[in-house]
């Protein structure tokens, strides 16, 4: 695969690993905040290649995992509404809410459809003019602009049965929350490659300037991740904190201004509840007044019932990087990919399912 295989070259990987091993022997915790990075690290076995003093920590990078139970309950309640089709990305199907899941709702007869894109959801809306089609909007700044575009397109085409239930979230705020919480020491951030393709490098500036934490925006191939680790170690060794772009072939410092403009034309910042992190002001995206007629929160009157958390589930701590999956008493015993208790085990990019899949149960 062009522009993929070259970034998996084993000789170059060996040289990068060698460089990393020659860096000063100072313990460092480097946190990644992107589910796709979590999978890449485990899939290629990168942790084993790094020296003992370099620890990779997984943070709240999986949009499925950070969706609060109450929001999942709302989506399930939406699916139960009459004449309503709920369209969702596949990963949300099995996420357990307080008492049910979208998969269970479908088995009970609700019309829940898995889509790969809002384009599919728009098509479903066009094909079912007498039904209301609600798209379950999860995802960070990589996904939110695509959902914004779907609303712009629906507006342009006069589609009046398409709605979005937005639980979209934006990335730098949780990074600040984690650093402020001071539960673990974070010595560097591996920043998400495609979120950054949209937002650019400036939103991370405050982490370097105010907190002295170096940030490197990384791609998703093994050489990308290894080079990002080396760049972070280099900054630490030189005693400077900056924001650097490793993924230069895709990420520009200014990001994609048009995509941002489209996103903020439709959405505005709001408070949002993150599993494990609680409410973070300004970290969510809600639909603006001008597009209120596409907002499922306004169009539907839903009471999903009381929210219940899963007893014993430590997903919140896993998402904050405080606990590694094997330290959760449920991991591998009660909570497995076949019988997941929490979303970290359900999502294909969840920290727990990734550990289980590629590192097993120690």
């Amino acid at each position: 695969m062009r522009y993929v295989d070259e970034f998996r070259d084993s000789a170059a990987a060996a040289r990068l690993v060698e460089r990393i091993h020659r860096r000063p022997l100072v313990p460092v915790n480097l946190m990644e905040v992107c589910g796709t990075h979590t999978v890449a690290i485990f899939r290629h076995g990168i942790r084993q290649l790094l020296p003992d003093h370099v620890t990779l920590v997984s943070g709240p990078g999986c949009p499925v995992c950070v969706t609060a139970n109450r929001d999942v309950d709302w989506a399930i309640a939406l699916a139960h509404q009459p004449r309503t089709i709920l369209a969702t990305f596949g990963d949300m199907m099995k996420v357990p809410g307080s008492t049910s899941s979208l998969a269970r709702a479908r088995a009970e007869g609700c019309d829940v459809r898995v889509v790969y894109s809002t384009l599919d959801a728009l098509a479903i809306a066009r094909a079912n003019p007498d039904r209301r089609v609600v798209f379950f909007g999860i995802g960070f700044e990589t996904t939110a602009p695509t959902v914004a575009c779907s609303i712009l397109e629906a507006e342009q085409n006069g589609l009046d049965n398409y709605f979005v239930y937005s639980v979209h979230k934006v990335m730098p705020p949780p990074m600040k929350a984690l650093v402020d919480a001071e539960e673990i020491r974070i010595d560097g951030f591996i920043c998400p490659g495609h979120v950054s393709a949209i937002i650019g490098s400036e939103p991370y500036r405050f982490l370097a300037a105010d907190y002295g934490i170096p940030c490197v925006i990384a791609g998703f191939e093994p050489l990308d991740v290894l080079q990002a680790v080396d760049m972070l170690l280099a900054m630490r060794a030189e005693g400077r904190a900056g924001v650097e772009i490793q993924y230069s072939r895709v990420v520009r410092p200014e990001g994609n201004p048009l995509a941002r403009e489209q996103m903020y034309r439709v959405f505005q910042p709001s408070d949002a509840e993150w599993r494990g992190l609680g409410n973070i002001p300004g970290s969510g995206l809600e639909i603006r007044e001008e597009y209120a007629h596409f907002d499922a929160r306004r169009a539907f009157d839903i009471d999903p019932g009381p929210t219940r958390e899963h007893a014993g589930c430590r997903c919140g701590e896993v998402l904050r990087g405080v606990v590694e999956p094997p330290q959760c008493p449920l991991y591998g015993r009660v909570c497995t990919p076949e019988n997941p208790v929490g979303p970290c085990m359900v999502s294909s990019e969840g920290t727990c399912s990734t550990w289980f899949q590629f590192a097993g149960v120690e």
Partner: protein
Amino acid sequence: MSKERVLLAHGSGGKLSEELIRRVFVPAFGNPALNRMDDSAVLDGYRMAASSGAPQLIESAILARGPAGARPSVGRLALTTDCHVVKPLFFDGGDIGRLAVCGTVNDLAMVGATPLYLAAGFVLEEGLPMETLERVVASMRAAAEEAGVQIAAGDTKVVEQGKADGLFITTTGVGIVPEGIDLSGSNARPGDVVLLSGPIGDHGIAVLSRREGLEFGVPVASDVAPLNHLVAVLLEASPGLRAMRDPTRGGLATTLNELAAQSRVAIQVEEGRVPVRASVRAACEMLGYDPLYVANEGKLVAIVPPDEAERALAALRGTRYGEGAEMIGSVLPGPPGRVLMRTRIGGTRVVQMLMGEMLPRIC
């Protein structure tokens, strides 16, 4: 007959049923046992005889016909059965009919049995175009001929529209395991070499891409194929062969885990040595699947003693369906049941069994 559709009456056992058998199944599968149309096929070619010990099957003077090599003269009976519900019925490289025959032939071949006879049960959906049935049956005939087996018995039922997705096929197969062959998934020992007969993931991706409407620049074709001739060559080249298994549902990962668990050993494979076609890799990357878990219908994993590995590999590469064979890994003492992979960049990862469903209705 070709413009017609299957009716409920075709499954009722009466005149229409008889007509269906005579006009569709017998011409395609025709052989002496089937043609007699008795309740059971009485198979010439083998007789039971008791010698010192358990009764054995001994070849009689009349040999079963077929292009395959010499039939074993003394051996143990092998029996297997499989249901096929693949959707869609036709895909690049094959169809449900070829899948049914090859799947059962391969199950027999994996234990070292020479496949001999198949029985096929059909559940047809009312309204199925007769032409579809004829195409499937013709495909089964071609696969049976290639494998050198006879479809000696069958049954057909018809269910109401909406109850069968076109058609379902169940095949049962019988074969003979020659004396001296005792393959088992529990035979692997530390130091043994793991061979794979060719690139993985073709079948699963071929079916899925047809189902999902994925398009390729060069279409991915299913690898569905009868492996009994390849197995015969392998058995010849590697008398110490420990075990064979075909990585169908659950893919190579699941098969390796089963073997490791059964033999209470660990297996380590090299990511760079596992062959995957570029198009399959791309589709998997795109769909978020790992090729290790994608179904195959024309591949096998063989565990051989280290001193026979080179010869076995060369023999495989000389066969049809084995050209892409590779040495992918080795057996280690432990931890028992563990499958590990050394990644292309030198890292290590565990290879788990497939959890839950990945690709439903793939075979």
